[in-house]
C-alpha cells in the first residue's frame, strides 16, 4: 500500500502526516483516496497528467540547454492542502507586506522620507542595480508599483510560513496554477468531489480588473509584452493574453511617437495605455537602460515618464528584490503601517557588514549563500551540499565583493508526499515551497489568488525547487471553511 510505505523526514514539517504519524485532519480524505488508488494506480494517473501537458504544449524552455529544448513542468498528482485558517492568516500577512512594500516604493521614488529617517541605509538603495535613479520624482499612476507579485514562501519545521523572496519584477508561474487544476480535476475527478476547494481560474479576470483599475481612461487598450517565443515563460505570456482577451506584443510591434506608445497594426498605429510587460527593466528601452540591448522599444521610458503609459509592474520595483534589502523589510512594515509583521521571514546575514561577513565565512557549510541580485536559483550555493572547492571559490567571491552576497541559515523546508516513478512507484517525502500570486489595484485593493504555485524539489534531499533546476509542481488547494466533507 502506498501510504504504509510513506515515512515523513525526521525533523521536518510534513504537509500530509502530522507529528503523531497520522494524516492531518484536512488530509484524511485525500490520504484515504491515495491509499485506495495504490502506487500503480497513482503512477498511471501521473502518466496521464504528463501526457496531457505535453500534448497541449504547456512547456517551458531551459536556458542552459543550447538547443532550446521544450520541457514540461511536471505536476505531481498528490495535491497540497491548505486549510481555510492557514490560508486566511497567510493572505492577511501577504497583503500587509505588499501594502508596506508598495508604500515604500512610492516613498523611495518620491520624498524619500524612509532614507531621511535612516530606516534604510542610503547606500544600499543607490547602489542597488535595480534602483532607477532617473525615476525619482516621476509620479506612478494610481500609486501602484507592484501590480503583480509572486511571493516565495517556505514552511519551517513548525509549519510556520516564512517569506523567502518577494519577486516584485516579473514573477512567473501563475499559468501552471490554473493548468494544474484543470489537469488534476480531469485525472482525479472523484477526489474533487470529497472537498470544497477555492477556484483559481478567475486569475485572468482578476489581473485584467487590476490593470484596468490603474488605467488613465475608461476603455484602455491593454497589451502583454513578451520577449518572444524563445523565452522560458512564453507559454504563460500567450496564455494570459489570450485569457484576458488582450494583445500579446513583442518589442518590434511597438513604436513610440511623440511620447505615446503605439502598436503597429494592419490598420495603422493603435495607442497602448497599459503595458503588462513580462521583460525586465533593463530590456524595456535601449535608450534609457542598455544601449547594447536590441530588445525593447526606443523611447518607451519617455512615454512612461510623461504619464502617457502605465507599466505593470512599474520600473524600479526590483529594488525590493535585492536580497540585502530583504533584511530590512520587517522595519519597512513597522515604519509605514505601524504594525508588527504578520508573516515571518528568514534570518539574513548581510556580507556587507563585517560582523555578519566574518560569521558567514566561518560557517559557510551551514548556510545558503545568495547573490543579492540573483533570481531563479542561479548562482545560489547550499553550503552543506557544496564541495570543498566550491566553498573555497564562494569564500573568495564573498571577500572580493561582500556587498554582492547575503547568507541565510539552511532552511528546513517542509515536505509533502510526492510520487516517485519508475521502476517502483512509491510516495516519498520531497521538499516544497509556495508562491502565491497577488494583484495590486488602485486604492490599495489587493487580491491574492487562493493557494498559488507549490513547487517541489523532485530530487531526493534537494532544497532547490526552481523549474529551471529540475523542480516540479503540485496543485495547491485552499479549502473553504469546513471544506473537507469526507
Amino acid at each position, binding site marked *: 500500500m502506498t501510504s504504509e510505505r510513506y515515512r515523513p523526514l525526521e525533523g521536518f514539517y510534513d504537509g500530509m502526516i502530522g507529528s503523531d504519524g497520522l494524516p492531518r485532519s484536512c488530509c484524511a480524505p485525500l490520504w484515504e483516496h491515495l491509499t485506495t488508488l495504490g502506487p500503480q494506480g497513482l503512477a498511471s494517473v501521473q502518466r496521464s497528467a504528463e501526457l496531457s501537458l505535453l500534448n497541449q504544449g504547456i512547456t517551458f524552455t531551459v*536556458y542552459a540547454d543550447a538547443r532550446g529544448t521544450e520541457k514540461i513542468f511536471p505536476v505531481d498528482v498528490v495535491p497540497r492542502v491548505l486549510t481555510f485558517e492557514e490560508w486566511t492568516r497567510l493572505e492577511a500577512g501577504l497583503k500587509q507586506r505588499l501594502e508596506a512594500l508598495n508604500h515604500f516604493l512610492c516613498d523611495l521614488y518620491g520624498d524619500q522620507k524612509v532614507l531621511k529617517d535612516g530606516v534604510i541605509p542610503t547606500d544600499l538603495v543607490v547602489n542597488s542595480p535595480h534602483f532607477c535613479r532617473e525615476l525619482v520624482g516621476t509620479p506612478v499612476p494610481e500609486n501602484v508599483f507592484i501590480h503583480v507579485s509572486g511571493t516565495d514562501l517556505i514552511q519551517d519545521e513548525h509549519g510556520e510560513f516564512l517569506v523567502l523572496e518577494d519577486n516584485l519584477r516579473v514573477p512567473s508561474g501563475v499559468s501552471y496554477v490554473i493548468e494544474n487544476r484543470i489537469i488534476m480535476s480531469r485525472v482525479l475527478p472523484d477526489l474533487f468531489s470529497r472537498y470544497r476547494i477555492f477556484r483559481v481560474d478567475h486569475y485572468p479576470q482578476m489581473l485584467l480588473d487590476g490593470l484596468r483599475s490603474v488605467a488613465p481612461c475608461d476603455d484602455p487598450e491593454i497589451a502583454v509584452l513578451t520577449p518572444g517565443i524563445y523565452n522560458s515563460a512564453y507559454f504563460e505570456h500567450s496564455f494570459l493574453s489570450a485569457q484576458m482577451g488582450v494583445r500579446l506584443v513583442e518589442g518590434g510591434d511597438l513604436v513610440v511617437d511623440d511620447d505615446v506608445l503605439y502598436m503597429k497594426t494592419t490598420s495603422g498605429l493603435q495607442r497602448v495605455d497599459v503595458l503588462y510587460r513580462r521583460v525586465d527593466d533593463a530590456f524595456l528601452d535601449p535608450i534609457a537602460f542598455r544601449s547594447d540591448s536590441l530588445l525593447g522599444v526606443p523611447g518607451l521610458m519617455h512615454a512612461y515618464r510623461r504619464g502617457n503609459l502605465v507599466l505593470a509592474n512599474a520600473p524600479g520595483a526590483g529594488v525590493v528584490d535585492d536580497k540585502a534589502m530583504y533584511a530590512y523589510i520587517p522595519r519597512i512594515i513597522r515604519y509605514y503601517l505601524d504594525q508588527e509583521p504578520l508573516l515571518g521571514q528568514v534570518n539574513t546575514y548581510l556580507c556587507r557588514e563585517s560582523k555578519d561577513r566574518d560569521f558567514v565565512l566561518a560557517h559557510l557549510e551551514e548556510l545558503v549563500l545568495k547573490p543579492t541580485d540573483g533570481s531563479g536559483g542561479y548562482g545560489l550555493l547550499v553550503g552543506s551540499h557544496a564541495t570543498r572547492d566550491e566553498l573555497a571559490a564562494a569564500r573568495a567571491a564573498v571577500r572580493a565583493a561582500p556587498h554582492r552576497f547575503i547568507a541565510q541559515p539552511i532552511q528546513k523546508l517542509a515536505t509533502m508526499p510526492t510520487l516517485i516513478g519508475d521502476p517502483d512507484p512509491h510516495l516519498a517525502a520531497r521538499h516544497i515551497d509556495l508562491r502565491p500570486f497577488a494583484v495590486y489595484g488602485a486604492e490599495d485593493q489587493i487580491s491574492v489568488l487562493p493557494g498559488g504555485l507549490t513547487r517541489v524539489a523532485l530530487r531526493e534531499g534537494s532544497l532547490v525547487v526552481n523549474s529551471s533546476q529540475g523542480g516540479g509542481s503540485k496543485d495547491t488547494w485552499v479549502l473553504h471553511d469546513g471544506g473537507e466533507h469526507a
Partner: protein
Amino acid sequence: MLSRIARGLYGIGRDVERAQNVIRILEVNHKMNLERDPEDELNIWLAISEAFGSQVDPPSEFALYQELVLDFEHAYSVRRCIRSARDGGRAMRDYISEEMWLHLNGVFLSLTDLSFEQILAEGRSEFNRRIETFCDAFHGLADDTMIQGSAWRFLRIGKFLERALMICRILEIKRKVLALAPQEEGRPIDVHQWQALLRSLSGYEPYRRAYDARIKPARVMEFVLQRSDFPRSLAHSILQIRQALGTLASENAAQLELCATAELFLEQLKVLDAREVLRSGSLEAYVSVLHKRCSEIAQSLERSFFVSSRPASPAIVPAPHAGLVPQQ
C-alpha cells in the same frame, strides 16, 4: 490585427504554396525526363535551375533535389518552406486552428532526418505526392476550420500571391525550354512542354474538360492566365487577392491604392490576346510584365499593411541569446 501577425500568416500562406509548386515542378519534369527522346539534347533541369536562382552546375535532378528540397537555406527549398511555415505556426498558434497546427507540425517532424536516399527509397513520385497532398490539405483545413476573418485573409493573400508569382515563373521556365528548341508549333517537344506547363499547375485535366485534348499554345495561355474559374490561374489568384484586400483595407491611402492596383491588373488580364502575344513573339516581354505586376503587389502589401504608417523604430534584430532575459 498586429502587423507582425498579419505578415506571419501571409508568410505561412506563401511558404506552403511555394513548397507545393516547387515539388510539382520537380515531379512533372521528373516524368518528362523519363519519357524524353534520348536524341534530344535539351536539358530540362537547366531552365528550372535558372528560374530558382540555383547555383548547381551542371544542373541535374539529384543536384536540384539537394538544393530545392533538402537544403535549409535556399529560399525555394521545400524543407526550408515547411520549417519556416511550422515556426510561424508555432508563434501564431492562437490565430490558426488546432487541426492546421497538428498537420503542419506532423509534416515538419516527418522531414527531420530526410535525405535523397530516403526520397529514392520512398519513391520520388510518392514523396512528391505526399508533400503536394500536405499542402492541399493545409489550405483545405484553413478554409474549413478557421474563422474567415483577418487572419484567414492574410493567409489566403499569401497563398494566392505566391501562386501568381509561381505561374509567372513556370511560364518563364517553359518559354526558355521552348526557345532552346527549334520553333515549330505542333512538334512533339512543343506539345509536351505546353502539356507540362498545364501539369505544373495541376491544370491538365481541368484543361481537357474545359476544352478538349488538343494542346494549343494560345488556349493554354488563356487557360492559365485568364480563366478566373480555374483556381490555379493568374486571374483567379489576383481576384482572390483583390477580394481579400477589399475586406481588409481601411481608410489608409496606401491600402486603397493597393486595391486599385489589383483591380487594374485584373482588367489588363481580361483584355490579353494570347494568340497575338505568341504570334508576335513577345512572350518573353509579356511574361516579364506579369511578373513585375505581381512583385509590385507584394511590395505594396509590405508598405501598406506590414509596416506602420509613421516612421518605425529601427528594425529589431534578435541578438544572439535574445529573449534570454532572466525571469524570476
